[in-house]
């Protein structure tokens, strides 16, 4: 139970020579916040003093932080209780999701600039404005979706790199350290902890970036570093995202949809699904799409626009009606946010319900995901690792002592519901994801 039962303890008798300190003065909110900031500033000053130029410990920490999506326990400074009460909504049902970070209202966050500096040890004044802007877009939900967020991150990095060349001192410092400590890490930390927890796609891309930085030759011109890094970023984006999407679309259309009469069921919004449908228009003999959407995000509306542009006959239903349409459906195509190494698929909340209903009707479920979204994590169920969204989207009634709103953003589809996973390396059964992981990262153990 979340609420603690209050037990009346019998009052102890006070010993005679006990010195009772005077009662603490009741501070106003502003005063308490000021005290908190002072304490945090002191703490971060201490931390920065300790970590001088130590790359390996921070690298490892970032690697582990990015290869697993999010571990709030590793950053105790960011428990909801430390950030000002005005910036966070009331934490949800303590029993279910107390291990997840409470949703933060983005508007309030960006007003309290001073607190940002204190809480994460980074001054937004020291972050590149493009980073802050991207972070704002993440937090408010203007950029949503695994591919979109990752792309935004990579493009932001590619854009800001040149701005650091003239500012730094090329001869004394190792520019690689500058890249790491001043550009990449603070931005990523800022986005993850203050704007929105990073997705698996972002995490994997960031890991790649750090590897790329570490593998740059020593003693190069800073401008040369920047060029090489930009090249790596663009190559990653091109190969792992754009090319992968095109390959997946091609595979699906040629192997699964060619010359067939299809009624495809899709859920929510996914870039790769859009690409598949673009190809399917010409490869299918007859094509019809049933689009399933769900509250609170109603991302299907975005997808609907794109389907209408393609001119495909389309029905739009809400999630609860999905069992009514299954008699016509031939295949279910789903996008994904992440694929776990045991074959389970992390996607937008509601994906699991669609997959489950389809499996119950013996309709094949195809999950389409680029390989860079594969995570080596194993997750047993949806709640252990998830993200909380704005509870006001669920209901505008406020939280009270015994009424809470829960807005989960992701859910986990078990491998048993998935017939096949389409990646740019081929169509594989869910259990082969682990193999793909090993193939892609031979140096990882």
């Amino acid at each position, binding site marked *: 139970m979340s609420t603690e039962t209050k037990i009346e303890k019998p009052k102890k008798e006070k010993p005679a020579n006990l010195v009772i300190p005077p009662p603490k003065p009741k501070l106003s909110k502003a005063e308490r916040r000021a005290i908190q900031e002072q304490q945090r500033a002191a703490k971060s000053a201490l931390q920065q003093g300790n970590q001088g130029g130590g790359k390996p410990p921070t690298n490892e920490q970032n690697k582990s932080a990015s290869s697993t999506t999010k571990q709030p326990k590793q950053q105790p400074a960011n428990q909801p209780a430390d950030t000002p009460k005005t910036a966070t909504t009331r934490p949800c049902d303590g*029993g279910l999701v107390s291990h997840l970070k409470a949703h933060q209202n983005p508007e309030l966050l960006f007003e309290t600039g001073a607190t940002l500096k204190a809480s994460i040890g980074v001054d937004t004044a020291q972050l590149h404005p493009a980073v802050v802007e991207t972070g704002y877009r993440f937090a408010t939900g203007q950029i949503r979706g695994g591919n979109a967020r990752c792309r935004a991150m990579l493009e932001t990095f590619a854009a800001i790199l040149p701005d650091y060349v003239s500012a730094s001192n090329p001869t004394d410092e190792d520019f690689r350290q500058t890249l790491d400590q001043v550009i990449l890490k603070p931005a990523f930390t800022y986005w993850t902890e203050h704007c929105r927890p990073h997705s698996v796609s972002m995490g994997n891309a960031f890991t790649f970036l750090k590897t790329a930085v570490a593998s740059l030759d020593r003693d190069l011109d800073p401008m040369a570093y920047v060029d090489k890094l930009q090249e790596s970023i663009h190559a990653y984006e091109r190969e792992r995202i754009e090319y992968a999407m095109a390959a997946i679309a091609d595979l699906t259309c040629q192997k699964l949809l060619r010359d067939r009469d299809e009624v495809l069921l899709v859920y929510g919004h996914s870039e790769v699904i859009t690409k598949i449908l673009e190809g399917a228009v010409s490869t299918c003999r007859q094509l019809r799409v049933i689009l399933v959407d769900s509250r609170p995000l109603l991302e299907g509306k975005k997808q609907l626009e794109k389907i209408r542009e393609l001119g495909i006959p389309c029905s739009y239903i809400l999630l609860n009606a999905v069992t009514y349409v299954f008699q016509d459906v031939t295949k279910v195509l789903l996008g994904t946010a992440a694929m776990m190494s045991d074959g389970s698929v992390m996607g937008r909340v509601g994906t699991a319900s669609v997959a489950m209903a389809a499996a119950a009707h013996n309709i094949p479920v195809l999950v389409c995901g680029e390989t860079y979204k594969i995570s080596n994590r194993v997750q047993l169920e949806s709640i252990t690792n998830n993200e909380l969204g704005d509870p006001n989207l669920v209901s505008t009634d406020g939280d009270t002592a015994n009424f*809470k709103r829960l807005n989960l953003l992701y859910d986990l589809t078990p491998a048993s519901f998935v017939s096949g996973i389409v990646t740019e390396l081929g169509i594989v059964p869910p259990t082969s994801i682990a193999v793909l992981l090993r193939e892609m990262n031979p140096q990882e153990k």
Partner: protein
Amino acid sequence: MTGLADETEIRNYLDVRRWLEEHHRKHLALLDRFLLELRRGRLKQMDRRIVIHRTVDFLRHMVGSTKWKNPAQLHLLLRGIGHELQKAGYHEPSIGNVVRRIMAAVREEANFDNEHTIDSTGGRLSLQSMLWALPQHVKASRSISSVRSGDHQRQESFADADLVSPEYPAFYYQERSGLKSTVMEAMDEIVNELEDLYKNINEQVVNHIHSGEIILTSGRSKTVELFLKAAAAKKLDFQVIICEGAPGNSGHSMAKVLADAGLDVTLINDSAVFAVMARVNKVILPAHAVLANGSLMTPSGGNLVALAAKHNSSQQRHGIRRSAGQTAGRY
């Protein structure tokens, strides 16, 4: 003469409308108004007892003030009305059940005085005769023994192509003085059962809900609401997770009502039901109707909840309302 070619009598169940038009205009108007309400979905109340009350009142009026002469006529009248009601109100199975129950009462009363002429093997009280809307005997023979024997045609609806002109045993055509009062009593019984409806269900709450559990439900239902409130009243300490039930969002008002009653409530979207199911101990679903094969009609989305519960191997409990004439399903 067994009352067939007579204009003042109902020939068969499809003839009811003509008969009403000729002899009871006002009742026909009443029937049409009721059908219109059904078709327009006016009776899709959350509290389905209102529907039953309306149906019973309507039938009371129909049975009470029309000039039927004998049990056969009354039976045909009811069957005809039931047929029309079912066509218009197919989304409300309980209406058909009410009518069937009255018809069973009619048959029971008609058979009652003749028990000395039938073998007393309880043919009139057997499950077969209670469930089926029509007498089971075959067309040709009028013999008494054919009441229980012969081809038993299963009647799932009031419509039957073959037996448009059913022929009842001879004693159905005798006038019966106590029939009307018996039928009225049967209707009162239906209404009275509704009174105790929730009490009977809520008595069992301690068997099913225990402290420290997390219960999941979907949308708004009076039965489930009272069930959970009864559990809270027994000082059981549990949490309730409510799926909102898009697009009607009836879960929102359910959450409010339960929270006001002091329960620990969490509101989630329907899409999140699979995600939270791993933490749920029990699922309670409201029943719109229980069908003969054990299937459950629930508000939209119940299927997904049930599938998720099965996958996570939570136990499912169906909140059952004793719709008139329908035995309560499994708990």
